[in-house]
């Protein structure tokens, strides 16, 4: 039993901290921490800074331009980035498509797409979910039919995160309907500028535009854009989902959320005393802090097992469930901490350059919206109920 980082790992952490201090603009960190709206250029700037340092592709092998980091180094890096208020790295090209191309793509595809992902030339989005296929992803209906040296794609994808910024989309499409649903799916790369593609915003309950619907009408895609073999897409999709799920515990996000909650509770007043001193509220905060402490150790146990060669299995599902519950609880307490000032809805106040004085405390504006936005985390990436099914089957044999 040794719960400490090695001297090398501590040196790495210090190096990351130094980098963040030098290269993460203070104004950008303030935007992230203040819950302000980020521009496409903000994501692109941070992507570029990380690429310049060679710290962008954590999940790629060194020979493809990856970092070659150990699981613990990845953990440290993520933790430090979140603590410093760095924007998240848009994961679709880097953490999702990249590993799939590296494992299943052709040499040509790797040579063409991977450097462009690193350079930020292509913004990728993910074409998985459909209106009729949420948790039951394999039931997807978007069709690709061979026509000479093209596929003709018809159908609709939905919940496409930041699709309105994207140059390319990787899609699961149905290429065979006369078999088990999982066996007739292929993995296609589609240029968003191809005629027949329409992107429509979906405004979510917090009033924000982050996700989209993407419509395909007789969209012609060269057969060279097929990844791997036809009808093997489900295998690739599942491989990709294992990458989507790492880090989904969101320990670092929860920790920074909890720190923010404590700051707010120290400023909000109840009965002329800080809310943080109210026994009932303090015990609610203490409860989630205890759960988070335990989950952080749970997460480290999983990371450390991976470091020693273990393959995380159901632990990812368990961490996803617990991690999302904790993050939701923290945003719920933040919302409640504000009292009546949770109510004002001033979305323009989240934009850069908004100069009006805040309504209520300056930290109040994004809180209720973030609470509503955070309902998504127990739904996406395989809903928490799906994760429980996975654990029941894989670990318990039920």
């Amino acid at each position: 039993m040794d719960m400490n980082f090695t001297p090398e790992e501590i040196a790495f952490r210090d190096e990351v901290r130094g980098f963040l201090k030098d290269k993460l603009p203070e104004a950008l960190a303030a935007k992230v921490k203040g819950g302000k709206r980020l521009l496409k250029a903000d994501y692109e700037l941070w992507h570029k800074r990380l690429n310049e340092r060679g710290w962008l592709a954590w999940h790629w092998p060194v020979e493809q331009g990856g970092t070659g980091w150990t699981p613990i180094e990845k953990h440290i890096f993520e933790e430090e980035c979140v603590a410093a208020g760095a924007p998240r790295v848009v994961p679709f090209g880097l953490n999702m498509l990249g590993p799939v191309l590296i494992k299943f793509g052709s040499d040509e595809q790797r040579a063409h797409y991977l450097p462009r992902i690193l350079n930020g030339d292509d913004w990728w989005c993910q074409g998985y979910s459909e209106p009729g296929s949420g948790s039951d992803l394999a039931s997807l209906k978007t069709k690709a039919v061979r026509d000479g040296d093209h596929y003709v794609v018809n159908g609709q994808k939905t919940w496409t995160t930041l699709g309105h910024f994207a140059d390319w989309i990787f899609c699961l499409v149905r290429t065979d309907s006369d078999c088990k649903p999982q066996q007739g799916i292929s993995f296609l790369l589609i240029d968003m500028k191809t005629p027949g593609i329409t992107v429509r915003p979906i405004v979510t309950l917090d009033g924000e535009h982050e996700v989209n619907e993407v419509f395909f009408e007789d969209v012609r895609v060269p057969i060279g854009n097929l990844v791997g073999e036809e009808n093997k897409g489900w295998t690739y999709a599942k491989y990709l989902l294992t990458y989507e799920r790492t880090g989904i515990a969101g320990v670092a996000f929860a920790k920074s959320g909890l720190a923010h909650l404590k700051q707010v509770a120290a400023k909000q007043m109840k009965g002329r005393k800080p809310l943080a001193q109210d026994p009932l509220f303090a015990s609610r905060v203490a409860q989630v802090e205890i759960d988070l402490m335990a989950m952080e150790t749970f997460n480290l146990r999983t990371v450390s097992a991976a470091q020693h060669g273990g393959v995380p299995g159901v632990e990812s599902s368990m961490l996803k469930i617990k991690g999302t519950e904790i993050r939701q609880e923290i945003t719920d307490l933040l919302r409640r901490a504000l009292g009546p000032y949770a109510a004002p809805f001033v979305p323009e106040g989240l934009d850069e350059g908004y100069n009006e004085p805040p309504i209520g405390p300056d930290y109040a504006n994004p809180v209720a919206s973030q609470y509503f936005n955070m309902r998504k985390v127990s739904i996406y990436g395989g809903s928490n109920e799906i994760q429980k099914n996975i654990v029941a089957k894989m670990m318990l044999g039920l």
Partner: protein
Amino acid sequence: MDFNLSDDRRMLKESLSRFLQDRYGFETRNEIAGSEQGFSRELWTQMAELGLIGAMLPEEVGGFGGEGFDVMTVMEELGRAIVVEPVLPTAVLGAGVLADAGSNSQKALLEKVISGELLLAFAHGEPQSRYSLSDITCQAEKTDDNWVLDGQKAVVLNGDTADKIIVSARTSGTDDEEDGLTLFLIDADARGVSRRGYATVDGGRAAEITLEDVAVGVDAVIGEPGKAFPVIEEAIGRGILAVCAEALGAMDVAKDMTLEFLQTRKQFGVPLGKFQVLQHRMVEMCLEIEQARSATILAAGRMKEDRATRETALSAAKNLVGRSARLVAEESIQMHGGIGMTWEYALPHFAKRLTMIDHLFGDADHHLERFAALSQAS
């Protein structure tokens, strides 16, 4: 970073596990628990020979461990068999206090504790103190060459069979002050000590102890007079870690029994485990057990840190174990249905121990409040 057990601890765990599997089946356990003495002297001696007591004490006093992870390793295995022998009062609390603060002659007694010959009890809590560690009214007054003790001690684990008893008493200060507490090592059969022993609902034994003009020499004092609070807090801290680990073992068994029941028991023509509502409840149990395990590991790893760091982790672990143990106890009975309500089946005895662990050293609410106070102070 490495969460694997060291080779020594793994070997200890394996030999303990084999011993309990061979010699401490559930029926034996229930027979022992129902006996007059409440434990088996013979098995106790064998456990001592296996090194179970020595593992929980440091080398300076003749043990070969004494770190948080040693306590955790031993207690988790004991929890898997819901062992009723007085390991907690003797090896963890009593021997821990002597190893921590005892005089040389008091420490010399530990040889007999490690070999299983001497049984101890830690008589600290009182009828009014609930889970407070400083609410002590038992008085000790200094005469010319003696101390004279008067007071009452509540629910003293192993109180009726211990050979020697460590008693806390107030030698100065008011009733709930941390300052002014002193520990004494007294013979259980000393004049003026009366003990009313009784069984506890989870299979062990305890006693109400009354001290009436109990005169002891100055050599009975453990550590510095009036300054015992930190010793008491650290002893209770080891006790918290020990019962958290014990609960992990007991929760694992309760979970495994429930899982096997769901896989084999058929209703409506299918195993119960086919019902999704039960699957999800099983998963929630497993998840909370992992959380409890994580919190206990964290606490074990922080036993040598500064007070705030250590006590925060201990209160976190005790709170989480309190909540998860209740969940596992209640859910495993519910998922078993009627059979889970019977005395002759093992599961409910695990559930009872899991529930009563919450009543030792502060329950989930107590430690939630304490955690909040500790984190506000830091």
